[in-house]
């Protein structure tokens, strides 16, 4: 990537992150990229039903804020957060079984292919109504404060979601009560076919935080180091009782809103420009420049991750769909009966 080659090679000291952290971040990015691209292909081959929301191009915005969270910290994702799910520790088996809607999926096939979640890993299985989990995650943060725990919540959403009333109610509350929450706005310039300029009358979505009395920052969302560091500081402040932060990550989705959207409302040059800022390639270059990665090592990583993905696909495809009667389960606790139809 000639475009990203720097004259002065960076040093670990300048970056002030450990080798282990950098390798961890890079590994997560690579796992997410390979998984996401593979799932797109599977959808195109008709191997699973419904649709698929790819997050390719946006990986750093989800990996950065999630890496380093504890299991007890909660994340409230939206529909494009496969990167957060993987980084928070959901297994490929869980994710691919979800996509294939099988009985082995965490939701047993009830919700939607991209609604990844796990209670033990602290990932709220999302609803589709955008900004829904922003509100709910704020509620988690409210509870952490009442419980006097130093857990944090991280809410992920697109710039489009910031137009919803519920989103504003949540941020307002978090500001009043200095809740331990970090709001990650993935500004990928588009909400389906609607450009961000029709979404808000301000240039910077981070400015919305001003109205609620806490800091808002806009950063390069395709720079994993910047995202990780900015989020880590915000998380530390939240844990210390210093309240929320809104982080606007500038990024871009490479493909359609979902796999059935050809995205022909965008200019091809726009995509080409953003592809030059590929967050995975940039991280790779950094790792190579720092002497932490070689081409051979990368190849070996790709091979190992790919094998893991293929195993998980086999697992999911070999799993059965839930029995129809599963439809009656998990409506209520066991104490409340569901009316069943005669069969």
């Amino acid at each position: 990537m000639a475009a990203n080659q720097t004259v002065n090679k960076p040093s670990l000291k300048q970056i002030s992150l450990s080798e282990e952290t950098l390798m961890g971040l890079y590994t997560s990015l690579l796992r997410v990229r390979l998984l996401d691209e593979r799932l797109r292909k599977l959808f195109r081959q008709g191997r699973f039903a419904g649709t698929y929301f790819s997050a390719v191009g946006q990986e750093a915005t989800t990996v950065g804020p999630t890496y380093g969270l504890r299991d007890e910290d909660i994340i409230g994702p939206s529909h494009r957060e496969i990167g957060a799910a993987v980084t928070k520790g959901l297994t490929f088996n869980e994710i691919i079984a979800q996509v294939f809607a099988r009985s082995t999926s965490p939701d047993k096939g009830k919700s939607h292919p991209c609604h990844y979640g796990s209670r033990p890993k602290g990932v709220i299985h999302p609803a589709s109504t955008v900004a829904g989990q922003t509100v709910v995650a704020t509620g988690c943060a409210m509870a952490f404060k009442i419980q006097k725990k130093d857990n944090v919540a991280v809410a992920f959403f697109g710039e489009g979601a910031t137009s919803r009333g519920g989103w504003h109610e949540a941020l307002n509350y978090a500001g009043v009560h200095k809740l331990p929450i970090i709001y990650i706005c993935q500004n990928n310039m588009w909400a389906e076919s609607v450009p961000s300029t029709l979404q808000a009358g301000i240039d910077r979505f981070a400015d919305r935080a001003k109205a609620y009395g806490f800091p808002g920052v806009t950063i390069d969302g395709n720079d994993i180091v910047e995202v990780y560091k900015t989020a880590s500081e915000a998380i530390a402040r939240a844990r210390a009782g210093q309240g929320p932060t809104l982080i606007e990550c500038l990024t871009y989705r490479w493909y359609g809103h979902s796999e059935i959207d050809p995205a022909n409302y965008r200019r091809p040059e726009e995509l080409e420009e953003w592809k030059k800022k590929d967050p995975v390639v940039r991280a790779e270059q950094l790792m190579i420049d720092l002497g932490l990665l070689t081409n051979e090592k990368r190849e070996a990583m790709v091979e190992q991750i790919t094998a893991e993905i293929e195993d998980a696909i086999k697992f999911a495809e070999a799993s059965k769909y839930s029995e129809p009667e599963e439809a009656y389960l998990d409506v209520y606790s066991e104490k409340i009966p569901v009316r069943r139809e005669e069969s």
Partner: protein
Amino acid sequence: MKTTTYIEAITEAMAEEMARDERVFLIGEDIGLYGGVFKATKGLQERFGVDRVIDSPISEAYIVGGSVGAAMVGMRPIPEIQFADFITPSMDQIIQQAAKIRYRTGGQWTCPMTVRVCCGGDVGGGLYHSQINEQWFFSQPGLVVLFPSTPYDAKGLLKSAVRGEDPVIYFEHKRLYRSIKEDLPEEDFTVPIGKAAVRREGKDITIVAYGLMAHRSIDAAKALENEGISAEIIDMRTLLPWDRETIYESIKKTSRAVLVQENTKTGGVMAEVSASITEDLFDYLDAPVTRVCGLDVPMLPFAPPLEHFFLPNADKIVKAVKKVMEY
């Protein structure tokens, strides 16, 4: 005559009303250049401009509430809710403003607005892209609730809604968008609000349905015919206010009724229809009024076997009819 799909009928109704009446405008998500996620508004922004076909931010409360305000001062808005599942943020505006503005102001303010709601299952949409929520609005006096099942009705009812003086929640079933066509007259026509349609005449039993289930009921009636059972099919078309007369007339003739609804059973439209039939026609009935509905679980689970299990279909309707016939 022109062969027209259900979705084309909707597009044409909007285009013709916009051409006829400059007060008519559209607002919704992705409806402009993109033409809507299902292409219901295709070509309309190009033709009528950005002031009359407005790409909204993701703000359902505003899409509807803003339309209420515009309607109050002389416009004829047609807001679009991209998926019925996402109508929830606008409930406050629909229930507290649209449904009550006339009542609470002694008739001084009115809300001639048509909310188009894309809804329905049997499309592999899962829990958040299959919902229908007609029953929430069905219980709200002040609202009109429409649910066409054919291209003719889709076009004619949408025009009646736009030309009317009341707030209308207009459900369009996404499974029907491209799966049914019919020849429509070239000249202007409307379908009256509040009138059901007899889709098929029969003498043994009355099947009442609407939306996708009207089609499933016709399929069932065809199967039943082979077994010597003659079913009359009534398509409600307007849910609020619903057409008692047509339904009652049929049941007085057949003395038996099966009511079919895609949505969950408890508290649904057919619960009301059933209660009314029992109240008003008890002496005419030869068997219990019986419902075939979606299951009483969240509408609706994603995995194909679960979706199939949830939804009423022709087989389930046939089975219920036979049971009622044997009673």
